[in-house]
């Protein structure tokens, strides 16, 4: 953090913070409570600061305010002050701020203009708007691409890049404009673990080169590489600390942030916050501790686990429709998209009735294409798909939906009703169920997703976490024999992920078949007995989760953009066999 960006001409050379928030209050029109209330934060040049919190805690609002988007682009009342490179945003013309601060959002494809034929032209777009002379543009573009290590993308078509590549291009397009402050709002929300790590490394590199970075995130892989982390809870600062402390149970856990298992162990062992995310240090502390100390640590871990709220438990699902348990059989399945891309290259897979299977793999490995065949949204190019022993060929999606429930990743692609209750009743009504059966299913589904007390609200008045749960509930209410979930944890916060996991458990307990597409390894390990790993349209591993996700399998997982869950790595450092999921249990393993 020594080499600060050289001060621009006419600016004081002293250590002016790149960003200074002073008693910041943001209030959206028509909301009773402010979205942010009394936030103080300073980010120095060359410093990377994280912002964590539940969905709705105010992370995005903070990012928008820090990027000078409020109130110019987003209408809201702003109190207190925001200063960028020493200039108060309220008194500075837009043009003066543009080259100084830039912001990157979460959906990769929406970041790009969508009209450029090459990445090079995409980067030039910002420079054009700044009025940079054409003769200077290529040099600036080359320098930016070079410093981010993505020169090889320069002549590629932006819309044809993978999500991870697009997101790095989006960051490059902002950095090319030369801002001293880079703000990011959940930049890795849609990326697989390998792409997430690449973005985290890129951001750390930029900070080392002198740019101030403020990143709102859920992922520990990104937050862990920050210097400090601000935790928000209901618009209020719950604390700010090094990431090991901020994400630990005392600050993050109490604010509903997912506490990394390693940080939980570090808390139990009494390690300092600075070492709380260091697996090696935690493993060494466990080896050094005596049996009495380990037992005390385990009980501290258990106690801390309860701070983030009581465990979500969902009662086992009770069937309302008479349906026999259904298995799935996929034989020689191939699928090519128009244009020739072969997404599935000969899949053979048998899933027994009542099995819980997670299909994992990087973006573009073919897992969603495979899942869409299970409801006949896609028809096989070759091969066949059988559900409950019946070939799906020739059946409509709506007909297959009587047996197979499919929950889409993006809830906004399906919600349309005036109330949560009507939305959840849409599916069972389409099946032509009697009113009494529909009412029972709707009540059971609402209880499962934890929204029974919000049944009368409009789905669009709920936050993203709850909207995802409404979409899930609307499929549960159809009482299908097979439940297929596409990325149930994407865009979801820790309590939402716990809820989705509890629903999977309750369905498995009721003997239903559950299939999930995910690149959340911890979620897969925790709730699914069997893991299928896909790479480039093929199944490359298939077996019990304890075997497939063990640290010993790291190389295979890395070949498709995945990594074992964090505790698997720690277990391997300690020589513990299998895949422990509960941090306290690791301490009690002899």
């Amino acid at each position: 953090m020594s080499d600060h960006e050289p001060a621009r001409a006419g600016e004081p050379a002293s250590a002016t913070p790149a960003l200074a928030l002073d008693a910041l209050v943001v209030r959206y029109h028509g909301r009773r409570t402010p979205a942010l209330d009394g936030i103080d934060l300073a980010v120095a040049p060359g410093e990377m600061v994280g912002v964590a919190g539940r969905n709705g805690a105010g992370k995005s609002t903070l990012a928008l305010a820090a990027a000078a988007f409020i109130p110019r682009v987003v209408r809201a009342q702003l109190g207190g002050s925001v200063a960028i490179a020493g200039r108060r945003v309220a008194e500075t013309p837009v043009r003066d701020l543009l080259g100084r601060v830039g912001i990157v959002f979460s959906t990769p494809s929406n970041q790009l203009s969508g009209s450029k034929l090459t990445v090079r032209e995409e980067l030039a777009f910002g420079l054009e708007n700044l009025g940079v002379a054409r003769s200077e543009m290529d040099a600036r573009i080359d320098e930016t691409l070079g410093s981010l290590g993505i020169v090889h993308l320069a002549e590629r078509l932006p819309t044809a890049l993978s999500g991870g590549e697009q997101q790095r291009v989006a960051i490059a397009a902002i950095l090319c404009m030369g801002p001293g402050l880079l703000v990011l709002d959940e930049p890795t929300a849609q990326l697989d673990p390998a792409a997430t790590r690449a973005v985290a490394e890129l951001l750390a590199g930029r900070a080392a080169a002198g740019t101030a970075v403020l990143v709102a995130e859920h992922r520990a892989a990104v937050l862990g590489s920050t210097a400090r982390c601000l935790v928000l809870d209901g618009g209020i600062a719950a604390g700010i600390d090094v990431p090991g402390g901020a994400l630990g149970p005392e600050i993050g856990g109490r604010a509903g942030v997912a506490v990394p298992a390693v940080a939980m162990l570090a808390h139990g062992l009494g390690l300092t916050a600075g070492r709380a995310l260091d697996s090696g240090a935690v493993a060494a502390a466990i080896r050094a501790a005596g049996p009495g100390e380990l037992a005390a640590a385990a009980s501290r871990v258990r106690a801390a686990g309860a701070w983030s709220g009581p465990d979500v438990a969902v009662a086992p699902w009770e069937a309302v429709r008479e349906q026999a348990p259904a298995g799935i059989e996929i034989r020689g399945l191939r699928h090519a998209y128009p244009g020739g891309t072969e997404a599935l290259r000969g899949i053979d897979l048998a899933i027994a009735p009542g099995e819980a299977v997670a299909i994992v793999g990087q973006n573009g490995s073919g897992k969603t294409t495979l899942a869409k065949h299970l409801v006949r949204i896609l028809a096989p190019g070759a091969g066949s798909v059988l559900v409950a022993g019946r070939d799906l060929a020739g059946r409509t999606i709506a007909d297959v939906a009587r047996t197979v429930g499919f929950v889409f990743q993006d809830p906004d692609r399906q919600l349309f009703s005036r109330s949560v209750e009507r939305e959840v009743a849409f599916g069972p009504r389409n099946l032509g169920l009697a009113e009494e059966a529909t009412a029972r299913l709707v009540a059971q589904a609402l209880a499962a997703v934890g929204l029974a007390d919000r049944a009368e609200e409009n789905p669009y008045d709920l936050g993203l976490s709850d909207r995802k749960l409404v979409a899930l509930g609307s499929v549960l209410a159809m009482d299908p024999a097979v439940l297929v979930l596409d990325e149930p944890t994407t865009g979801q916060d820790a309590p939402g992920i716990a809820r989705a996991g509890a629903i999977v458990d309750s369905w498995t307990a009721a003997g239903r078949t559950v299939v999930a597409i995910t690149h959340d390894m911890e979620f897969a390990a925790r709730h699914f007995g069997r893991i299928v790993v896909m790479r480039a349209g093929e199944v490359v591993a298939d077996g019990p989760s304890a075997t497939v996700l063990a640290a010993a399998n790291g190389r295979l997982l890395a070949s498709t953009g995945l990594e074992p869950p964090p505790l698997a790595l720690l277990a391997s450092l300690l020589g513990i066999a299998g895949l422990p999921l509960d941090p306290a249990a690791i301490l009690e393993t002899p």
Partner: protein
Amino acid sequence: MQAASGYYRPGDSWLHRRNPVTKLLALAWVILAAFLLPPLALPVLAVACLALAAANGLGGSVVRSLRIPAVLIASILVVNALFFPGAVDVIIRLGPIALSREGLVFGLVTAGRVLVAFIASIAFLQATLPDDLLEALVARGASHRFAWVILSAVQMVPRLQESAATILEAQQARGLEIGGSFGRRVRALVPLIGPVLLGSLIDVRERTFALEARGFGAGGPRTAYRVVPDPPGDRWIRAATLLAIAAVVLWPFVAPALGIR
């Protein structure tokens, strides 16, 4: 699969190489001619546009894209032929429905006009990179915000189609039957419209944010990275097209004076 950019088909044909403004003027002429010239011109215009597209490697793709307006064009023909108000010359009558000669003629002519306009517009969109059109318009003094609105509108249609397809799948996966009787098909639209509209609003919001982050709303002088070629011959084509536009616009006034109907 997302298209590279709107309806654009990458290529290097003669039509692709024309300056976007040249093509825009030619498109304007074809549409004006289709609506202002006598109906006999319609087959000539349609064949000429298709031949031009085919000669530039776009024949097949233009014809395939005509699927989209096919329903509209067919319904113009059918509704006019069967329900033409004040029709006298009835060919066949079936209860309240009467196939009339006037209706058939009017329907054919109107459908022909719309068809020609679509053929020319699709050929234009497939041969013109939207971004080049934007730069060319800005270079000729159009406000870049205005040019961006045009560009967004051009890109909006394929994006809406894509999102409507996904939404339809999501609702069918919740048991929505889309086939069957007319009433059933209409009812099936309800769960589609809301998410399509809301989804595109969310999309527009995110895209607006991204544009603002790239300094699009900054105002002030703007530079251009991409040089849009303007081949020397284009100047003459544009001059000729402008004359042709004037001729077509004046035709309805001139023709009666010359005793032509």
